């Protein structure tokens, strides 16, 4: 029988949750790196026991941890993230120029084929790569040098590169997203990049349809259809059918289209999930009801999923990297909340159960489906 391993990053450590394919009984292992902020933990598709973990604190800065045994043991690897060349400035919150400063790693994306190659999305926004298992990191400076960098600005959480998507059909193609700059794509393995934000409309920037400046919260792609992207923006849920060249709004009948995570069913590339929250100022579910919304039509038509989720007095949030799916036949969907709950649905969202209720605030959730 398959095993499911859920990698959870929290404000105060990492946790590894494991179950068999029934997903009914769970072993909770952790906290690893107790007291540290764990922005992201992710396993290598090429070697599932190879895990990478971003560990940071306001006092001691950035540490990268690596496990070669599925999270049983860990060892720190390289943590020097030096921008390439002269960094220049981006916009500060008030529009003044502000120098690029490394703060932390938000997202780690292991290569689809090589366990020793891993990408890191960092704040202030840049993309780094290691080809030696995380010992050494080199920036892919073509992104920051794209030319629009002086117009990028931080979102409320910082100017973070939070999404990295590797195209399984084309190793030259990578998508990334930055808050608040927008989405970008390279078709030459990271040497050059183009913004892919046509169709986005953001009323909080001077030109709502500008080439850059959009606060993209998360982007998802189904591996069977790498040219189709789904985006949860600051406001608006969007779809692109042409690798980001253009975007169409698919918020449809959502009660509100502000939120952070977005993910896709493992076997149904038009079944997508979002967790709406009330507004940019009120980061909690409308009416105190925690509802995942599912569309089986690639957007526009959404249904609330509530079975097993609190439907009164619930004021948690689900952050952008805190939702994931497994690839079992009955697709499992998982998400973690800022209240420390990690929920699992073993039936594609119809019913939910908490795996664990009282972790520190959850920053990220990744799922591995193991043979």
């Amino acid at each position, binding site marked *: 029988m398959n095993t499911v391993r859920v990698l959870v990053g929290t404000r105060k450590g990492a946790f590894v949750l494991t179950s068999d394919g029934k997903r009914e009984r769970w072993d909770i292992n952790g906290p690893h*790196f107790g007291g540290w902020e764990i922005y992201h933990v992710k396993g290598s598709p090429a070697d599932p026991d190879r895990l990478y973990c971003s560990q940071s604190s306001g006092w*001691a800065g950035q540490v990268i941890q690596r496990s070669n045994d599925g999270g049983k043991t860990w060892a*720190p690897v390289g*943590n*020097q993230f*030096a921008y390439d060349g002269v960094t220049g400035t981006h916009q500060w919150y008030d529009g003044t120029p502000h120098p690029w400063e490394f703060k932390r790693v938000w997202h780690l994306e292991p290569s689809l084929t090589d366990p020793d190659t891993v990408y890191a999305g960092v704040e202030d926004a840049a993309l780094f790569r290691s080809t030696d298992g995380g010992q050494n990191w080199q920036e892919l400076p073509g992104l920051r040098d794209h030319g629009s960098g002086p117009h990028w600005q931080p979102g*409320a*959480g910082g100017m973070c590169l939070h999404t990295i998507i590797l195209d399984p059909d084309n190793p030259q193609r990578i998508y990334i997203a930055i808050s608040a700059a927008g989405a970008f794509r390279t078709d030459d393995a990271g040497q050059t990049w183009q913004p892919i934000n046509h169709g986005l409309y953001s009323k909080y920037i001077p030109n709502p349809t500008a080439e850059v400046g959009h606060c993209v919260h998360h982007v998802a792609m189904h591996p069977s259809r790498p040219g189709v992207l789904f985006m949860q923006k600051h406001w608006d849920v969007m779809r692109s059918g042409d690798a980001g060249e253009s975007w169409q709004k698919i918020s449809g009948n959502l009660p509100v289209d502000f939120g952070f995570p977005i993910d896709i069913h493992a076997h149904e590339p038009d079944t997508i999930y979002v967790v709406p929250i009330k507004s940019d100022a009120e980061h909690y579910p409308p009416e105190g009801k925690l509802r995942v919304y599912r569309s089986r039509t690639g957007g526009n038509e959404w249904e609330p999923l509530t079975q097993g989720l609190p439907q009164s007095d619930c004021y948690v949030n689900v952050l952008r990297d805190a939702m994931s799916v497994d690839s079992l036949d009955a697709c499992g969907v998982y998400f973690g909340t800022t209240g420390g709950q990690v929920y699992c649905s073993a039936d594609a969202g119809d019913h939910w159960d908490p795996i664990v209720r009282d972790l520190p605030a959850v920053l990220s959730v990744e799922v591995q489906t193991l043979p």
Partner: protein
Amino acid sequence: MIRVALPAHLRILAGAGGEVQLDVAGEITQRTVLDALEARYPALRGTIRDQVTKQRRPFVRFFACEQDLSHELLDAPLPAAVASGAEPFLIIGAIAGGCRLRYTVQPGNSMSATGA
């Protein structure tokens, strides 16, 4: 033998049980002590000071002999009691450290900042 006390998070990261004792060659300064500390515990590189500029991280403080040495020059001699091993060199997480300013853009584009 130089004695160095680490904050709990770094003690765990380094795998150091308690107070660290270091052999430090030459003059005893912040630089030579931290060089020796990082050589013995490579996991600490970048967590106390920048790996390139060697600047102390903003929320890390250095105390010894009831003095705040955080703003002393890197190559200034440390107190004789530290050099002799009578007193430890204390690496401290600032009591208000770890706080991130969070900015919220309000309607009308005014901005507020709160600690989190």
